[in-house]
């Protein structure tokens, strides 16, 4: 009998403790709190002022935004790339507004889209790349932005207010832009590397890390074969197949989350990675790493914040967008993730070293030449299949 009493007390303590902890945490969404005994009851312990305006100390605080009454529950579900939203930014937002932010990550646009489409998860903010924004606008999946609630949008550089996939920022606000390029560990690799042809050589077999993104890899092969990278027809796919078949066996690691890890660990000495990852490596060890934009051509990507139509807290989402457009906040993002910052006011706050980082900020004339990805619909599955096939050949 003693075991039983002991266990019952422990179980009771566990259950009580869990309820307590759950109460301290996020209040569970109304539809999900049903029969499970350990379910949390909605008791938000943070008391925030009813009217929370993005009270900024900069002259950009607009009186109209301050007056907006936001009676949504103090929650924001953010679905974003891993390695893209700094925790200090999220914490600062929560501190200022009292809104708790739930973060879920993905490592590719396609993954994000699939999770959104399968309809299970409920997200307020997404961070798609330009070609996915294009597709989502076409399919009427996005909620138009109420720009009167986002006065800080004037901080964006003019180029980023007139993007061809969403002119006038009706649905999206650019978060960061960047390129995909080559990073070289010059201590290990002494030959000059200027492009894909130099990277994918037999002698570097097993020393390469690339992004685990079929669309990306295919675009590099297209560029190397002189084909326009958005022209993903079945014909062109067959044309680039031999290139891919010669490239992929040389790759040691596929990683879109954090390709710099393999480079830092010394497991690889060459990488085709996001420009932000390259910039971080350059920052960490400038004598050891070098950044090169492939001579065959690369592309520009623009990741933006968008609000899906199914969002439950759209006003909170708009507050967050306005928040990150503040120059200091945007500079914080650049601090952790040195991509191409579209915020002109923020750029004024960056240090000369940051601005000189050639991975973060390519020369203007280079940017002008770069293309962005366009939506390719069902071909994305074909592309993914091909890469998987070649990986295992």
């Amino acid at each position, binding site marked *: *009998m*003693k*075991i*039983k009493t*002991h*266990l019952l007390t422990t*179980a009771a303590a*566990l*259950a009580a403790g*869990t309820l307590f*902890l*759950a109460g*301290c*945490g*996020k209040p*569970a*969404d109304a*539809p*999900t*709190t*049903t*029969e*499970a*005994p*350990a*379910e*949390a009851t909605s008791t938000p312990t943070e008391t925030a002022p009813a009217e929370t305006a993005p009270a900024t100390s900069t002259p950009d605080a607009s009186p109209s935004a301050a007056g907006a009454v936001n009676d949504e529950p103090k*929650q924001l*579900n*953010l*679905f974003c790339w*891993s*390695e893209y939203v700094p*925790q200090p930014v999220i*914490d600062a937002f929560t501190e200022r507004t009292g809104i708790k932010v*739930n*973060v*879920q*990550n993905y490592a590719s646009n396609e993954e994000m889209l699939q999770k959104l489409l*399968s*309809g*299970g*998860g*409920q*997200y307020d903010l997404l961070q798609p790349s330009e070609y996915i924004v294009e597709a989502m606008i076409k399919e009427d999946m996005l909620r138009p932005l109420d720009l009167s609630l986002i006065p800080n949008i004037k901080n964006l550089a003019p180029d980023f207010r007139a993007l061809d996939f969403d002119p006038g920022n009706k649905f999206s606000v650019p978060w960061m832009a960047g390129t995909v390029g080559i990073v070289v560990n010059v201590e290990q690799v002494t030959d000059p590397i200027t492009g894909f042809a130099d990277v994918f050589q037999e002698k570097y077999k097993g020393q390469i890390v690339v992004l685990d993104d079929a669309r990306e890899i295919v675009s590099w092969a297209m560029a190397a074969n002189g084909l326009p990278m958005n022209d993903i027809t079945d014909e062109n796919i067959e044309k680039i197949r031999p290139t891919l078949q010669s490239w992929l066996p040389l790759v040691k690691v596929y*990683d879109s*989350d*954090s390709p*710099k*890890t393999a480079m*830092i*660990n010394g497991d690889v000495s060459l990488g085709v990675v996001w420009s932000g990852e390259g910039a971080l490596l350059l920052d960490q060890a400038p004598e050891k790493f070098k950044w090169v934009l492939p001579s065959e051509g690369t592309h520009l990507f623009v990741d933006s914040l968008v609000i899906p139509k199914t969002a439950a807290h759209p006003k909170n989402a708009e507050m967050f967008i306005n928040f990150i457009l503040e120059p200091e906040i945007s500079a914080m993002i650049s601090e952790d993730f040195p991509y191409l910052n579209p915020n002109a006011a923020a750029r004024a706050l960056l240090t000369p070293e940051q601005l000189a980082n050639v991975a973060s900020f390519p020369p203007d004339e280079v940017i002008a030449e770069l293309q962005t990805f366009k939506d390719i619909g069902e071909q994305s599955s074909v592309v993914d299949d091909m890469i998987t096939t070649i990986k295992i050949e």
Partner: protein
Amino acid sequence: MGASATSGLGTALARWRMPSGPQLQRIVFGGWTIFVFAFLYIPILILIIFSFNESRLNLQWVGFTTQWYEKLFNNAILVKAFKNSLIVATGATILSTVLGTIGAWMMYRYRFPMRNALNLLIFVPMVMPEILMGVSLLILFVNMHLQLGYTTMIIAHTTFCFPFVLVGVQARLEGIDPFLEEAAMDLGATPIQAFWKVIVPYLMPAIVAGALMSFTLSFDEYIVSLFTTGPDSQTLPLKVYGMARKGLDPQLNALSALFVLATITLVLFSQLTKKRT
């Protein structure tokens, strides 16, 4: 004196024989066990040691510090994820224990028509690959228009946990005195009272083992969670996986050290409670 020492040695030498088969086997197996334990524990020890290391890299010892533990406790994401894991694991454990115990007893006690089919069905979640379970449950939840979150997680975790409780209780039931329940009822108990006051105490070891197993499985579950989580119910393994992908982070070392500590404490606790009865 010298004579007795040498004669003592002599006797010992005379007595020494080649270890017999079973003894030799015991020595060899024992040595092998030590080696395997080393294999199991050295990585964990390394994690723990380097959780106190000044440097970010798990390579050289630089200096002693507890900063990573501080960072860990202040890491709002991980703390929240830990709470979520606790909530889900506790919910799943309670449901699993109830389902498994009552289910096992009912199947033992009564002749239900589809018993063989039931046994097979129960076996399925135990061995089904987690990805299939995760994916099929996701399809179910989506079609039921259920919001992904705590509820779906607890349901999913219970589904693969309760068979362990059930099977464990079934095994224990094999050794039960068949007339135990009848004896209780002869003394005036209803079937429910007999179950609760007589059978359950007998089954306790199996129930406890099953509950512990459920909790552990649920707390450590990654794949099923990946498919059934909502944005606010991210559990610890999901966050840890993301961090592990990003590379070395001493906070993970600190986390694992705490895990091991918690496990050892629980084990000691259960040993102590056993001794008292």
